[in-house]
């Protein structure tokens, strides 16, 4: 019964053997540590600037998609307005630098703190609602922020529709502005950021908090009767997702050094949501895969102007045919290749949910 409810990332970790075995657990950690370290050397292998640009953009989108996927997987909540979080992070960062002349490092620290704190406050309000109003509220929040930064009253602060171009003062972790604007030299920051965010999402998913969250999603009433607080864990989950979204917004701010109202647009938030759906949100890495696919699609079809049309078709198809996304598809094919058909019982239990 619980196995149907818990869509834990274990399903996606091919290295995850039975977890009680300590030697295979050590192998599991070694494998992923090696992936993280080897990942740092990607720019020295990939010579093409174009490919590096695609990879960095996938990572920025991927971090946001992991945040959206975290909330979808742990709380069953779809954040339509992910742009509200990522966009406000970029804006807070930009305002701190352009209007209050923070140094880059201080602005990063301030943004992480301020945006996460704001998410905690918004979460405390928004988590009182059911999933459907939640989706609409986050959508409305993003739209409100977009209208707000575009009003003439806010022009002295946000630059309205001109946006805010940034000039960094000082370096961030030893990186200068021109280094961060180039994908190949920005890579280490982006790579470590996404590894950190994925680790955070994975760790929370495997913690007691994750179990409580999924149990609340499955049956909130029963959890309340069993003496669990069903409100605060979800507020914490929203705050954590907000923190991950902030990281995505910060990466965008550091890399592009520009904040514009489009960052808060309905469609920008939609991209993260669509990436998550494409990749499948049952696993932590699914949204990352989805983001890579999405950015590749953007590169391929963006110039022809068919991108949004295909995105729409993609969303409909994925939901109708592959509800568990590309990662679910890969997982099933992997299981099938190993001669182990995807267990029918699990599928039925999922359908019954």
């Amino acid at each position, binding site marked *: 019964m619980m196995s149907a409810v818990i869509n834990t990332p274990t399903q996606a970790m091919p290295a995850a053997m039975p977890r009680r075995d300590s030697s295979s657990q050590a192998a599991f950690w070694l494998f992923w540590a090696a992936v993280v370290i080897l990942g740092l050397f990607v720019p020295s292998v990939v010579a093409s600037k174009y490919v590096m640009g695609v990879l960095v953009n996938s990572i920025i989108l991927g971090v946001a998609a992991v945040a959206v996927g975290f909330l979808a997987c742990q709380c*069953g909540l*779809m954040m*339509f307005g992910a742009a509200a979080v990522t966009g406000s992070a970029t804006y807070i960062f930009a305002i701190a630098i352009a209007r209050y002349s923070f140094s880059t490092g201080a602005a990063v620290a301030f943004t992480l703190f301020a945006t996460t704190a704001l998410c905690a406050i918004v979460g405390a*309000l928004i988590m*009182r*609602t*059911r*999933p*459907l*109003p939640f*989706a*609409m*509220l986050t*959508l*409305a*929040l993003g*739209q*409100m922020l977009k*209208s*707000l930064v575009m*009003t*003439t*009253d*806010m022009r002295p602060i946000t630059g309205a529709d001109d946006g805010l171009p940034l000039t960094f003062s000082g370096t961030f972790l030893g990186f200068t502005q021109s280094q961060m604007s180039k994908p190949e030299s920005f890579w280490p920051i982006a790579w470590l950021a996404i590894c950190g965010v994925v680790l955070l999402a994975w760790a929370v998913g495997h913690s007691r908090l994750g179990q409580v969250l999924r149990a609340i999603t499955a049956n909130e009433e029963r959890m309340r009767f069993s003496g669990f607080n069903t409100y605060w864990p979800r507020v914490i989950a929203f705050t954590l997702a907000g923190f991950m979204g902030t990281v995505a917004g910060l990466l965008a701010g550091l890399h592009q050094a520009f904040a514009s109202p489009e960052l808060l647009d*309905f469609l920008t938030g*939609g991209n993260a*949501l669509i990436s998550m*759906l494409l990749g499948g949100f049952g696993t932590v890495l699914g949204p990352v895969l989805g983001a890579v696919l999405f950015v590749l699609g953007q590169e391929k079809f963006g110039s022809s102007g*068919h991108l*949004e*049309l295909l*995105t*729409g*078709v*993609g*969303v*409909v198809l994925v*939901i*109708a045919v592959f*509800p568990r996304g590309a990662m679910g598809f890969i997982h099933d094919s992997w299981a099938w290749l190993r001669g182990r058909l995807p267990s029918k019982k699990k599928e039925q239990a999922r*359908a019954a949910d």
Partner: protein
Amino acid sequence: MDLSQVLSASQIANALALASLLTILASGLALIFGLRDVMNFGHGSLFMLGAYLSYSLGGLMNFWAALVIVPVLLGAIGVAFEYLAIRPLQKRTHMEIALVTFGLSLIITQLIVKGWGPTALSISSPPVLSGSIDLFGKPYPVYRVFLIFMGFGTCLALGYWLKYTKSGMHVRAASQQPIVARMMGVNTDRLSLLVVCLGTSFAGLAGVLAGPYLSVDPNLGASILISCLIVVVIGGLGSIGGAIAASVLYGFIHVMGSIHSPTLAVLAPFIMLFVVLLWRPQGFGSGRVT
């Protein structure tokens, strides 16, 4: 500022004009949600499609023909929506269907950009309605008065249908207790086809009516969808009465706010939304179709 400035007759009329558009849209949204549990994120783009179709039909024939034909066409889209999207996905969660409608809205918006181009179009009101009338000593566009009558007239007709006819009673029953209604011999599938058609053709009607009132561009759908969602959440999901009350409130806040402080006008609906959800998370109305 004195009170007459805050509440002049023409501003009240402006608020009602916006509210009447929102009531048509929100009641369509509420109907579909009440019966099918589907939150249609594509409602805004259907509305926009209605406005664009009325632009083309208005050019070919005239406004009045568009006013009749467009809702029928959108009703046909509703049939397709019911058979191709809602029924096959009936067993899925609300969220998955909502995401499908979100995908459909992206598709419709892009088809509109392909078909009519990305620039804003303006639609002139029909000659009969293009003048202005005297409203308490000040001239006021006749078209907006017509809009108000059409908006609230449609809602009254809908209310009458739901309250006093047999099929309306079935809709109310099926949206409150679908299983019991089916046991009592109500054909809920046929009913939901009717309701989805009605909901989408209402979106088309609102689109035609909005043509001469708003500027028609590809962002229209997303912006009206947000207003509509705010209205249905404040009104109580699925409650038509609540949606009408919330539309009027939204119209007033928007118009009053835009006169005194544009920033406040932008924020007020959202602040209202948060206040309502904190104070009464289920919204004003009693929920469902009542």
